[in-house]
């Protein structure tokens, strides 16, 4: 073809989207999981005690806490049930390990469906290397999807 400088971005568009890279196109303006997720979710470490997390979560007005390491890689999740445990227990023992996580680029309408279908109250949103972006609440996902549907219906 006569081109001497040709490169192949092997990991492709999926990699770009999963890393939160900017995009163009008809889907560009639609809300995605990463934008709707709450970045101020309380976090805690594996070697803390549940009582410490309980205090922090309560003070912040939340009912969930994400367990992360020093690089903010998600290791587990404490939902309302787990947070009711023995304050003396270690986070590592109390948490739900390896929760299902989702990437920031997933359209919010898709997230809303999944969270309703699988009865997920909340879901950690992470980058492709597992770092926490925020916690997506089902109520936020469903509300945003509904608003989008209404707006697209109005403009049709």
């Amino acid at each position, binding site marked *: 073809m006569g081109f001497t400088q040709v490169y192949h971005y*092997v990991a492709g568009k*999926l990699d770009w989207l999963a890393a939160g890279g900017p995009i163009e*196109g008809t889907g*560009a303006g639609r809300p995605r999981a990463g934008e709707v997720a709450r970045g101020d979710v309380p976090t805690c470490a594996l070697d803390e005690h549940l009582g410490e997390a309980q205090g922090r979560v309560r003070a912040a007005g939340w009912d969930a806490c994400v367990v992360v390491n020093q690089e903010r890689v998600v290791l587990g999740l404490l939902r309302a049930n787990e947070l009711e445990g023995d304050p003396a227990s270690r986070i590592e023992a109390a948490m739900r390990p390896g929760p299902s996580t989702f990437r920031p680029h997933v359209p919010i309408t898709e997230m809303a469906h999944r969270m309703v279908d699988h009865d997920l109250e909340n879901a950690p949103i992470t980058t492709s290397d597992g770092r926490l972006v925020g916690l997506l609440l089902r109520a936020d996902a469903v509300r945003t999807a509904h608003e989008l549907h209404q707006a697209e219906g109005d403009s049709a």
Partner: protein
Amino acid sequence: MPREIDREGVRRLVDHGAQLVEVLPAHEYEEEHLPGAVNLPLRRLEEQAAEVLDRHRAVVVYCWDSA
């Protein structure tokens, strides 16, 4: 044979004027694509590259993923 690059490589090359080419079908390109990318679906790449692209600038091609 194209040289393989990663995300940072894409950013560096684009900063230096590289042309981005998405080889996926048009409807996928229209939905979302990397900023500034043009669409040359794979089956038309050879026939249209010379018309659409500047052969004096680097070209970065990408698909959906590595599969």
